[in-house]
């Protein structure tokens, strides 16, 4: 469970850094017809889905270990 917290903290740090740097040079996210905004949205959704699957995988593994 500790490692999950570590990973979550790391992800949060990354996110804050990216958000901060995006504000500094605001033209990056707004260039190319703001396509990077779409990329950010889709990437967030896919990361979210993967975290959810990872969580399910863990839960099932735990039950499997208890069954043996």
């Amino acid at each position, binding site marked *: 469970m500790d490692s999950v917290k570590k990973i979550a903290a790391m992800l949060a740090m990354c996110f804050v850094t990216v958000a901060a740097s995006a504000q500094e040079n605001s033209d990056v996210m707004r260039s*190319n017809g703001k*396509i990077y905004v*779409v990329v950010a949205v889709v*990437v967030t959704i*896919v990361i979210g889905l*993967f975290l959810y*699957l*990872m969580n399910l*995988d863990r839960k*099932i593994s735990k039950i499997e270990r208890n069954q043996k």
Partner: protein
Amino acid sequence: MIRHSWWKILAFILLMYTCTMGFLVEIPKLDGRLQETIRNLFFHVPMWFGMMTLFIVSVVYAVIYLNKPGSKADIYSVEYARTGTIFGSLGLITGAIWANYQWGAFWSSDPKQNGALIAVLIYFAYFVLRGSMNDDEKKARIGAVYNIFAFFMLFPTIWILPRLAESLHPGGQGSEGNPGLNGGDLAPSMRLVFWPSVIGWTLLGVWITTLRIRFRTLQNKLMHG
């Protein structure tokens, strides 16, 4: 194998690549008809590749079941078919959305659309058939036989009939090559995103399937001691 994590991480990396490069990669500007919608190639087409792969695994387990009946092969066969059907349904829906802006309507009763719909409906009937029986062994055996039929129906409905008629979809009568796309027609830069996306989406489907398989196996153990 189904508990290893390297291929799950691979799926994640490939889909991250797909979901960034899919929007950013340079696409050829041809005649202004497809425009940016060609990027759907990285999302709509992999659904069908994924569906086909999942159905192949499903039919293999159906044959394994008929050779040597056992609950393991049955669970694998059903769950691969289930995720495959979901991928096929997503392929139909995304195809209809794309068609609305490309062909002028969500559904034009195009041979490719009709064929794909029939193929997916045949798999829906597989679950209806299984659900109609209470005896587990009978359910598994008849299900496995029907699975083989459903799999071979994919060939006329998706691969052969749409090629014999005029179609709005690539690969109809008069055009050469594969019904999905002609491999050589694809710009090299797009090929570098397309194939990773196919592998990534397929692996995601496999992951979801293995989770269901493990869940069903546990359920089985709990119910039968």
